């Protein structure tokens, strides 16, 4: 079997530990002090990247690209961490990463970047990414990238992928009810939007980092600016989910009564 060609779409998002406060900017909503907030690799995309690296290591001749959209400077900071974890080649696209962009526009920018990868055989392409995003979670971007690349086979909520000897793919997808659905497709090309997968985040390995940096730094230098994003969507209002904490100290309440209160609260 030929090696796999895996392209992971994964962008940066603001560090969720930071105070994320939406505010109005000149061109639409932004996060307060967005440019100064530290960023991390989108955790959903991270799962996809670890799975991609694991798969590539198991199939000789495989290669992993990470196509990342975000402010170039933030990408550089994040790559100092991500670049040490697994081997990949970076394709950087300079653009916003605050979450206030339309998934169609983002998908277009990512698809163009994938098409421009030199030597990529799209008939062998496995397009990976997160089925969700920590930025705003539209959950549609990856599917739209797949559509633009004319890849019909789409799997979302993937937790496991096995490449069979004949090159066909066995995919485990999350479905309702906490169960998984097993699918088999003939092989690449395919789009896989990962849930959490099964791989822990690899430890930082500076030796891997030193190798990756040879490609990452030039990729960052020649990162192309994404077409203006955000023009196709208007935000009427943005706000964070309200956090509400109501504590009552009650003793000796029967379990049935607790359950009844919970149901009532959820239904309200």
């Amino acid at each position, binding site marked *: 079997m030929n090696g796999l060609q895996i392209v992971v779409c994964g962008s940066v998002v603001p560090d969720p530990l930071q105070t994320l406060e939406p505010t109005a900017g000149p061109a639409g909503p932004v996060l307060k*002090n967005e*440019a100064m907030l530290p960023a991390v690799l989108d955790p959903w995309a991270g799962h996809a990247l670890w799975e991609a690296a694991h798969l590539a290591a198991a199939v000789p001749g495989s290669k992993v690209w990470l196509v990342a959209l975000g402010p170039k400077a933030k990408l550089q900071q994040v790559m100092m961490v991500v670049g040490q974890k697994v081997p990949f080649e970076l394709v950087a696209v300079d653009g916003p990463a605050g979450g206030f962009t339309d998934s169609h526009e983002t998908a277009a920018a990512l698809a163009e970047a994938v098409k421009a990868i030199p030597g990529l055989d799209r008939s062998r392409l496995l397009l990976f990414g997160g089925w969700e995003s920590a930025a705003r979670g539209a959950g549609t971007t990856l599917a739209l990238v797949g559509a633009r690349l004319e890849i019909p086979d789409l799997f979302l909520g993937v937790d496991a992928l096995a490449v069979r000897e004949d090159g066909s793919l066995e995919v485990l997808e999350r479905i309702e009810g906490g169960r998984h659905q097993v699918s088999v497709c003939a092989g690449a090309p395919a789009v896989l939007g990962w849930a959490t997968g099964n791989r822990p985040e690899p430890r930082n*390995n*500076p030796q891997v*980092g030193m190798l990756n940096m040879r490609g990452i730094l030039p990729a960052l230098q020649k990162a192309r600016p994404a077409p203006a994003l955000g023009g196709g969507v208007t935000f009427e209002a943005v706000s964070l989910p309200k956090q509400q904490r109501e504590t009552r100290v009650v003793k000796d309440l029967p379990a049935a009564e607790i359950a009844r209160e919970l149901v009532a609260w959820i239904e309200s």
Partner: protein
Amino acid sequence: MAAHDPAAGESLRTLPGDDVRQILWRFADRFDLQMVVQSTRAVARGPVARLVASGGRNSHDWTPGKNELLRAYDESGITAVFMDPEQGGFIEGPKNLALALVAFELAWVDAGAATGALAGNLALSPIHERGTKAQADHYMALAAPAKPGEDRKPWRGAFCLTEPLPYVGVDTGMLSGKATIAEWEEGKEPVLQIEKRGRFITNMGFANFVTAAVDSADPRLKGSCIVILEEGDPGTFDRGTPTRKMVHQLSSTSDPIFSLRVPASRIVGGYEVKDGVIVPRWDHGEIIEAVFKRTRVGVAVMTAAKLLSAVEPVIRYQRGRFRGAEQTKPGSLRHELGLQQREDALHRLTDVWATGEAAASLAFAAARLYDEVDPLERRKSELLAQAGVGGGRAEFAYLKKVNERAIEYLSLSRLPQGERDEARLLELANDELVRFALVDSEAGVLCPAAKLWCTGHGATVMREAVSLVGGYGITEDCPGFLGHKWMDAQLEATYEGPEAVQRRNLSVTMAQPLFLEQLRTWAGELRRIAAARPGTGACTLATAFRLWLWTFDHLTTAKDANGEKLYVGPRQGVTFRLADALCWLLASRAQILDLLELARRGPESPLAGEGLPGLLEFLGDLCHVQAAAAAGEVGRICAELTYGYNRHPAWDSEARSVCYAAEDLEALEGIISGMAGCATDVIGEGGAHPDKAGPCASCQGLHDFAALRMKLDGCLTGAQLAKDRAAQALSKVMIPEALDYPA
């Protein structure tokens, strides 16, 4: 020129991030170091923090949990930072800054972890600095983490110096460990018998080899040396009982006993045989000097990290202090700001932050300087060899001339363009030995200054940080482990030479003519900085430098009331205190230089760019606050030393003779109206005198000092306004929702 008033300008928006620190501490262009920082941070805020939070520090023993950290250090590359690429490392060139960054990141969470991670390097350092190539290659390769596919455990080392028992941290020159020659067959390698007991030896719970200092107890072995002991050597390799230390519990420390036979080839740096006597190439003192002057910087960094790590938890505590109380409704000022409504809370936190910035600036400056020293030192050795200059006195005399050239270079560089010999200046600037002399002179002061000030004064300020969190600060629940950090800082003040050793070191290196010339140059530079960036405290600092220099010059020539010289080695009441004062100046200067670097390179960084004006204003205010504190400390110390060794006049006949008699003054007043008001000490009828110890002291010869001191006081103008602005910024800065490590 209008007074500096940035009140209406930008303010601090967020806590400084990596992008800012990379510029301040000069590794924005070093992706290898940026990766080291991230790797180390993942270990510090992951396994290390979890271990501390779960009570891992509550044991003297080397537990499985602590042992797991070693694997984390290996896997994340921390262990390999010390090694060259061919030895299994990944960083080319000098590694002082890299190691300092590792120490910073680990100590941000727990300095014991930092010590544990770096102690192996300390064991290797004698071999690295003065070992033979064969020794270096052998032990570095053994200590390097296993490469992928390799099935071996890396060797761990310990450095064994401290003795005699039962004390901890005694004078490095006092050795009781002994080496004798056990066997020496004709034509064969001699075998040494080593008897050594250690105390408070880090890494001893698991070390596979030990670099131990021993003195000769055999006429066939000359002087002292450092030997390498291995776990499998014949004899006793007893790790001893764990030291019952109260701090740095994540490092392994015990009191070992060694009675081992080792080949003489284990003498670090090798030896030669002269007239039937084994002469080690390096005695233990020479090796220790080469080692400690580098590794002490890392210890200084640890305390600096703690101070800066305290800022975020303290802000969060202050803001949330009253939330949950019935009287504190959401949206009220008390709910939003909590203790930050109070000026004192904000001012004290400003002091903590300013000290942390200055400490980090000084320690990282020292680390970077050693990255410059390392290659130049090797080059110096090559050049001296080419010139046929041997060691000892010949080298000393040769380098004295180099130092004279370096002084000439500094003198020329201070002259305005057009008034100086540019060709000569260029020639001296390109002289590698001059460059070495300059960095070596500066490093000789910066290293002990950083170690002394960052850890000693840092421990005091860490107490302040703990106090800002009230009773919470001395519980294990306190976010940021502040109570642990306060205690740990006391050990850092002692590690690798306690404060007295640093002061003694400084009292020699700061008195060298070349360094004094550098100080004069820096004072001038600070004036120019003040002209370009008023409001940083650079002007205050320049005056404080001048006051210090005046005091030094005075003390080196003046005598006390008993006719005894003042600036002499045994007079530590003079030399040590002047050393203390100098440290404040150096820390404040380093902080201002870092600010200038951020101002210069910050605009290039898109990340820092948006909030840069506010950040520069805030950090500038911190510089000003710190410069004022330094000036106050220097002024006080210098005044005490300048005046304090003169005997105060008493109401005796000699002192009375210079006073006015009341009746004489009355008569003079009749001739010259107002005359009486000029007299300070008046003897009344029957010898009555004012209620004080004696007539006011004459300050003959000290008028320059008095004028400088008065000027320095005036230079504090604006410092409190800067503190007010910084405090105000602290009440508005956006902090993360939660600390990024568990507590």
